[in-house]
């Protein structure tokens, strides 16, 4: 089974990345890879660099900022392939993000398949696209949202969608907070917002305009909210 570990943290999270946190992350990765757990993940730019895309009545609405205003913001992710939900939570407990903020654990619908992404192509920017529900959209309309398959096929063939998946409902999420052995696991997502993450796709685009265009074509742009946010480049100055 594949599980998404959603890293979340409050403002000032960057300052929490001290030597201890870096060492813990290194150990975490070494251990996971050593035990044969398949991992794909990356940190995101801060929510100030997020853009939200919606389509309402055929009109494209682009706004600055993340999909929801919350104290903690999505800061990165890992998708891990493990045998059970309990095992996924065990890995989440040991991730340094659990004590720097929180780690939400969510199963991918249908399990997904293991992926390793190489670095971005020259001149391209990689974006995390968070597909979210919007309670403001009437139930009747959200029920009429088109299936996502044709979007996935089109964007994968175009080379802009690298990887992604639908998540089990937020109600099934479990969130880990604190430092092991004292980490606390609670039921539910990291933020108790009306808008919830329902899926994600990793995009590789020429620029934000292309990412917005791709996001706007996603069926959930009409039936929900789609956020696009650049990944953090590891070679950034």
């Amino acid at each position, binding site marked *: 089974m594949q599980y998404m570990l959603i890293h979340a943290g409050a403002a000032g999270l960057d300052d929490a990345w001290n030597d201890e946190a870096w060492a813990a992350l290194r150990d975490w990765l070494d251990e996971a890879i050593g035990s044969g757990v398949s991992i794909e993940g990356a940190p995101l730019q801060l929510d100030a*660099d997020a853009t939200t895309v919606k389509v309402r009545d055929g009109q494209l609405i682009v706004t*600055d900022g993340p999909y929801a205003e919350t104290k903690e913001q999505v800061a990165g992710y890992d998708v891990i392939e493990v045998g059970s939900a309990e095992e996924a939570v065990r890995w989440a407990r040991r991730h340094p993000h659990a004590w720097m903020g929180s780690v939400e654990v969510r199963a991918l619908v249908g399990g997904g398949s293991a992926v390793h992404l190489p670095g971005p192509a020259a001149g391209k920017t990689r974006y995390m696209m968070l597909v979210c529900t919007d309670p403001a959209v009437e139930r009747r309309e959200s029920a009429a949202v088109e299936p996502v398959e044709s979007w996935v096929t089109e964007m994968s063939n175009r080379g802009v969608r690298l990887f992604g998946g639908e998540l089990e409902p937020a109600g099934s999420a479990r969130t880990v907070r604190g430092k092991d052995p004292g980490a606390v696991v609670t039921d539910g997502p990291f933020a108790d917002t009306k808008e919830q993450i329902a899926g994600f796709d990793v995009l590789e685009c020429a620029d*934000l305009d292309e990412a917005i265009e791709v996001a706007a074509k996603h069926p959930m742009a009409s039936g929900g909210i789609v956020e696009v946010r*650049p990944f953090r480049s590891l070679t950034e100055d």
Partner: protein
Amino acid sequence: MADVFRQEWGRINAALIHQTGDWDLAEECAQDAFAQALRRWPRDGVPDRPGAWLMTVARNGAIDRLRRSRSYRAKVEELAVMATRETGTPDDGQRDADPDAEDGGVPDERLRLIFTCCHPALAMEARVALTLRTLTGLSTTEIARAFLVPEATMAKRLVRAKHKITHARIPYRVPPASALPQRVPGVLAVLYLVFNEGYAASAGDDLIRRDLCDRAVGLAQVLAELLPEEPEAKGLLALMLFHRARQAARVNADGELVTLEDQDRARWDHTQIALARRIIEDAFAARRPGQYQLQAAIAGCHAAAATAQATDWPRIARLYQLLADMTGSPVVELNRAVAVAMADGPSAGLALLRRLEAGGALAGYYLLPATRADLLRRLGRDDEAASAYEEAAALVGTGPERRFLNARLAEVRPRDSG
């Protein structure tokens, strides 16, 4: 010299950002070039082509800075800037073909800069600040004062916007023709917001605030020039010019606002009105009406009337009808009701108001009962007018609007006013 600076700042910034992709470097080099001009021009005289002079100095500054940096990226940027210097020498063939070019051979990249600053992925307040800073050269301190926010807040807003442009890779380009209908309105909205901030400033306000009107007009001029195929850009420019032409007459000696009806029309700037009229006629020739063109046409009707009584209200009512059909805005509907009342009598206006009130979209908006009150007063239905004035006054808080409503209330209910 201030005029040259204002014109050239945006052009230099736009060219350097295009060549280096580095917003901060561009700003520093533009700033250095202007500082040098301030030192040298008073001593050596203003050069024949001040714009080309500034561009050359700024570009050389950029090359120097990039040369001092050892990164690979800087080398690539340096080459990009050098390339424009090579092709942009004054004896370049293109220059001879275009003797009016004041840009030192560098193409005008301001349109890219405008579209990037006004990108929808930036917050509106960031778009406004970035546009004023990079295109008109207003300093961070001045923008902060103009928008009545602390300087640190404004500085943070600008830094954040530039970060997002870099991190999220907001492209530095003019959108393709197919995307223009979607993007142009966003740019026009930024310029109109800047204009209105300046227009709303009273005589007691900071000069910087009032200066926003001129900055907005300057930007609208650039946009109308660089987007000749967009009639709405011309429409916005004409609208701003019609409004600005009336600016001197809007305030009386006591600093109180004077309504359009009571303004001294001799104090209007008729040269500016004539210019605005030529621009709006030019825009309408494209036969693609839009909300700014219609608003400008309405402003033009008012400007054309020698007296308030001579206003062509039937035409204004028709224009508001078109505008209402286009925007679906209840505020436009309210204005239409006023125009219809002027054209066809207060009863016709009241009928429209009743429909608007039934719709409920303007509930709590004081101008709705205030307009009803005014129409009732003109019909001689003083008691009903009085309660409508009271209703409006209760919604408006304090200030000049409240004083105006109370004065009218006293007119229709003289005995109760004491």
